[in-house]
Structure formats: structure tokens, C-alpha cells
């Protein structure tokens, strides 16, 4: 009568600490160029060593430039972060995947792609989207800088076990509806703090039918639901997806691992603190209209009108409409767009680029449109180029970049200009997230691609 989360958590409990917290063992620690430098400095200062450098991987993604021909000094402000990540990794004996590595990419994209994360494993990462690896049934745990040092020194995290929530995704998806639309709909339906303090398992026919990469998109935005972790029970498709990847178990280990993964499901009689169900059968493609990930509507929908909303919500709605320069009650389709960004740990895996390329193929972006594709990893980029996807995007007038977080995190200075409206496949639409005064609409790669062609927010079924 255990949940999937119970099974993974319980298998990793080292024991209680004297302050009552639970020490949870970390199988894989994946750190990046934004938080590695201060963590290395803190380690040095306290004279501590890394307990398991062999289970730790450092990658450069947040601070790297994503422009063609980039070097570690393309962005001057980033150069010291990249250098300290490199020198620290060398000093502490940690494997570094820098921009000269064919395995470099966004930490949450490369962790499953290289099979660093595995079903049933615990994966710590100093980034709120650590939950992405839940798509392959790995328990991704997001940490702060101080906790990075703790994991480096002890290979454990001191946590209290979160409460548990199951979201059953019922019905079947219409052909144009993607994992991104589902998670946006869920966040819009229940709000961006509904899962606070909970580990979330997605179940039901929709979750089961999603391809492995779509499950990662689903779990990626659990943090926008307020959740601590996201999971989908791994099935045979996950093992098939992982087989032969760079760090995947080999030989007899592989056989044993696949066997062990078969026990990774929630028992029929397990009880959740919250057990919810939502019908996805009538879903259309979704998009955000405001400045909170919960400000979501369907592409055929209209922007909310504060005057007809409950009194308690009016001020927030007015603030959002004001920032987004939208008219109350107006249709979202037809709103003009300046830029399109296809990238991020939410939607820059190969299948995302394939889906966007299928919309773009043989067409051209609207006049004045600045459209960009930033692959989630160097490996995704290479695979996409082998399939000729880059040519489809370049012919259509898109920029084709190198792998990194780029305009999603915006910490490397790659951002929009004040007043620009962007349709973005990323995960956060907070005011100023993609640059001061930039208006962000979150959507799927297909919807973003269609907006680039049309020059406005549009239901892609209308441009085909």
C-alpha cells in the first residue's frame, strides 16, 4: 500500500538526524554554472571535500551564450562563472560538461538524456525545475546554494517527507493538444500554489499515453504548481528510451535495473493526502495571458474581465492586464507578437523541435518577427541537424542557437526589450522574467511556431 513516491523515498532514507529531519541519500548530484561557483567557494572556506565526486556532474547552461560561435567569454559577465565552474570541478574531481563537450546542455535535459537520472533514483539539482526528471520516474529534488554544499559534502539531503498528491489526467487528448497544454491547463485550473508542500504523481490514461519526453514537460512545471517533486510511473517505454544512453547501466546491471524498475508504481490501495482527477478530453491548446503561470486560457478563449470576476481577484487581474497591455474580454487570438522563443528545459527536447518544425516547414516567419530556436542540449542540436530540422527553421527565418537556458532564465543577459511581446515555450511568465517590460505568453512549441509565422497569437489549425 505504498505510493510510487513512498517507494523511492523509503528506499533512500539513511535515517533521522538529531534535529528530527530525515537524511535522504542522493544517487546523482547535477550542478550548474550559476550555483557551482559559490558552492565550491563555501566548500573551500569550510575545508570540506566532496564525498562522491564520482556521482556528481557539473554542467554549464545558465550562464553560457547560445549564439553561434560562442566561447566562454562571449558574455563577459558570465566568464568568471564559467571559469570557476571549470576550475572548481577540476579541483574537486567532478566531471564537467562544458561548452566544448558534446554532452553539454540544460541540466534537466541532459540528466535523463545521458541516463544520469534513472528510474527510482534520487537526483538533486540546485534549480527549481529539478522535478523534470520525474518524467522517467526519477525523484528530482530542487535545492538552494547551502544545500548544494550539504549534498557535495554528505551525498544526502536533510528533508521532511513532503505530503503526497495524485493528479489523475482522465480522458484522451485531441490530436493538437500536447503535454504543455495539459500542464498549463492543470495550473490554470487549480492555481500556482495548489501543490505546495506536496510531491505530485501524474496518473491516468493521459499520463500513461504521453511519450517519455512529454512526461518530462508535464513534470517540469510541477514547480509552477508549487510542488516539491513530480513523478510519472516509469513503464516499458522509459526503459526503451534510456537503453544505450551514455551513462545507462550496462550488461547484467541493465537487466537487473529494468527488472527493479517494474516495481516502481503506486499500489492500488495506496492513499494520497490529496487525490484529484481532471478531464482532459475537451482540451484545446492553451496559452497564458497574464503574469502568473495560472493565468491560462484556451486559444479560442478571451482575456478575463476584472469587472465580472470575483471582487477578491479583481486587483490581481487588473495588474496583470495592465502589465500585459491587453483589453479585458478581448480574444487572445490575433494579439500581435514581436518575438518567439522555442527552448528551455520545458520544451527543447528533440520531439519538441520536431513538432515545431512540422508547423514551420516550407513557410516563413511574419515580417519583423524575431524568432529563435535554442536546443535543450548539444546532443538534441546534433540530432535535429541530422534530421535537417535546423534547415527548416533557418529557411523559415528563425535563428538556430547553441544549447543553454538562454531567454528562459535570462540570467546570462539574453532577454527581450521593454514592450516586446514574446510567445515562449518556457515555464515562467512573471513580470520582467524575460527582460524589464517584456510580455511573455507561455505555450507549446507548436503554438509558438504558429505565432512566429502569423505574427500574432493564433490557433495553428488556422495557419495550416
Amino acid at each position, binding site marked *: 500500500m505504498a505510493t510510487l513516491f513512498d517507494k523511492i523515498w523509503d528506499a533512500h532514507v*539513511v*535515517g533521522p*538526524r*538529531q*534535529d528530527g529531519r530525515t*537524511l535522504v*541519500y542522493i*544517487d*546523482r548530484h547535477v550542478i550548474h554554472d550559476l550555483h557551482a*561557483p559559490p558552492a565550491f*567557494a563555501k566548500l573551500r572556506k*569550510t575545508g*570540506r571535500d566532496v*564525498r562522491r565526486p*564520482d*556521482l556528481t*556532474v557539473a554542467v554549464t547552461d545558465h550562464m553560457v551564450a547560445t549564439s553561434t560561435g560562442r566561447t566562454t567569454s562571449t558574455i563577459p559577465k558570465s566568464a*568568471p*562563472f564559467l571559469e*570557476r565552474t571549470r576550475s572548481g570541478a577540476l579541483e574537486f574531481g567532478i*566531471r564537467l560538461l562544458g561548452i566544448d563537450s558534446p*554532452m553539454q546542455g540544460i541540466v534537466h535535459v541532459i540528466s535523463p538524456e*545521458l541516463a*544520469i537520472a*534513472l528510474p*527510482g*533514483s534520487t537526483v538533486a539539482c540546485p534549480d527549481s525545475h529539478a522535478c523534470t526528471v520525474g518524467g522517467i520516474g526519477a525523484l528530482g529534488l530542487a535545492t538552494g546554494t*547551502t544545500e548544494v*554544499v*550539504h549534498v557535495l*559534502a*554528505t*551525498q*544526502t539531503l*536533510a528533508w521532511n517527507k513532503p505530503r503526497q498528491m495524485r493528479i489523475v489526467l482522465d480522458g484522451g487528448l485531441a490530436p493538437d493538444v500536447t503535454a504543455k497544454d495539459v500542464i498549463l491547463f492543470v495550473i490554470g485550473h487549480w492555481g500556482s500554489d495548489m501543490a505546495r508542500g506536496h510531491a505530485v504523481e501524474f496518473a491516468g490514461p493521459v499520463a500513461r499515453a504521453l511519450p517519455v519526453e512529454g512526461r518530462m514537460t508535464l513534470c517540469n512545471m510541477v514547480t509552477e504548481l508549487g510542488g516539491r517533486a513530480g513523478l510519472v510511473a516509469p513503464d516499458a517505454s522509459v526503459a526503451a528510451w534510456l537503453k544505450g544512453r*551514455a*551513462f545507462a*547501466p*550496462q550488461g547484467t*546491471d*541493465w537487466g*537487473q*535495473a529494468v527488472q*527493479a524498475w517494474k516495481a516502481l508504481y503506486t499500489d492500488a490501495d495506496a492513499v494520497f493526502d490529496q487525490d484529484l482527477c481532471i478531464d482532459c478530453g475537451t482540451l484545446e491548446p492553451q496559452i497564458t495571458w497574464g503574469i502568473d503561470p495560472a493565468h491560462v486560457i484556451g486559444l479560442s478563449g478571451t482575456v478575463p474581465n476584472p469587472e465580472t470576476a470575483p471582487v477578491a481577484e479583481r486587483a490581481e487581474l487588473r495588474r496583470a492586464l495592465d502589465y500585459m497591455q491587453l483589453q479585458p474580454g478581448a480574444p487572445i487570438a490575433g494579439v500581435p507578437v514581436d518575438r518567439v522563443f522555442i527552448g528551455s528545459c520545458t520544451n527543447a527536447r528533440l520531439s519538441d523541435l520536431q513538432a515545431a518544425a512540422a508547423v514551420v516547414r516550407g513557410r516563413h516567419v511574419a515580417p519583423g518577427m524575431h524568432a529563435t530556436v535554442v536546443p535543450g542540449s548539444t546532443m538534441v542540436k546534433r540530432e535535429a541537424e541530422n534530421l535537417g530540422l535546423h534547415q527548416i527553421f533557418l529557411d523559415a527565418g528563425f535563428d538556430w542557437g547553441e544549447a543553454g537556458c538562454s531567454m528562459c532564465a535570462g540570467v546570462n543577459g539574453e532577454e527581450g526589450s521593454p514592450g516586446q511581446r514574446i510567445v515562449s515555450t518556457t515555464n515562467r511568465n512573471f513580470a520582467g522574467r524575460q527582460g524589464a517590460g517584456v510580455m511573455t505568453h507561455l505555450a507549446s512549441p507548436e503554438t509558438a511556431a504558429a505565432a512566429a509565422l502569423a505574427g500574432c497569437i493564433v490557433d495553428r489549425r488556422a495557419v495550416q
Partner: protein
Amino acid sequence: MRRFQPVESVATLLDRDNIDTDQVLPAAFMRGIDPDYGAGLFALWRRDPAFVLNRPGWEKTAILVSGANFGCGSTREHACWALDEFGIRVLIAASFGEVFRDNCIRNGILPIAAGAEGLARLRSMLRDTQDPVHLLVDLATQRVTSPGFEMAFDLPAADKTALLEGLDEIGMTLLEATAIDRWESAEKAGQPWLQTLRTPL
């Protein structure tokens, strides 16, 4: 983390309530690759030449005395790093922001929530003189003393042990090091593929 030793230092009075962490360390000092947190401590106030920490005799203070709710506001641990890098070892106040107080313990700073009567005496003693007043803070005996002044204070036993033993978060976890060793051996036997990250070709 360093073990907490008895502290003898000039005491600095910040004679007000609700000093939030934005005052302790303005957000601008949290950015960049190598922030000098010590330089950021009370940075806005230190622009004033008359501010107490700029006065001769107070530059090297290790003890701050203040009012209620010290360290309220943003939960930034950087505020504690700023106090630590500046050299502050003891905070004596009526009360503290909750997260801030825990962060102090984790960073080796002693947060003394003083009783009303003792704190009132201490504040008026510091207020009434232009000369530096030295205090001795001894955690082992839980006493603050000075010629003509004495005050006892309370501290939860676990916090006292953590400070005296120099147990930060990591130190506390490493008390369980044998359990971690044992756990690793068990995983190596049961799921060996998780105890290795094979170097790819």
C-alpha cells in the same frame, strides 16, 4: 564550522525594533560572482559617518544589541554571512525573525533572545555613555557580563550543543556518517548501477 568560544568585545547598540534583513544586507550585495558580504553589512547606514560602526572604538565590534524582531523580512541567509564576515559573533535582542534565527545557529552566530528586564538595563547602560562598553559573552555558562552588569540567558539545548561543538548543517549530518556508509554499502549490493556513474566512451 568554528566552535563557539567566549566572546569579549565592545557592544554596539542599534537602538530600534524590526531591523529587517534588507537593512542587514541590501540585495545589491548578493549579486555578482564574489560578493563582499562584510562590506555590505548595514551598507546604507554605514554611508553616514556618524553611524556607530564608523566611530573609533566600534569598528571591530563582535556584539550587536537591538530591540524586537531583529532579522525579520527576506529569508536570505546572506544576511548571516554578512554578519559573520564582518566579525559579529553575538546578537542580543528582544526577539528575532524565525528563519533568520535558525540561520544564525547554522552560521555560528549566537542569537540571544534576552529577557525584558536585563535587555532594558543593557540598552540604557549603552545608551548613557559615549565610551565603548565591553561585554563578555560566555555560552557555556549562559551569561553576559561587564563590570557592574550581569545577565543570564536561555537557549535551547540543541542550539547550545550545535554552537559549542561547531555543528553546522553539514556537521550535524556527518554525525550520521556511519549510517551513510552503511546505506551506500547496502545500495551497492542491491542496486549497484546507482552507486556508479560509468564514464561514457
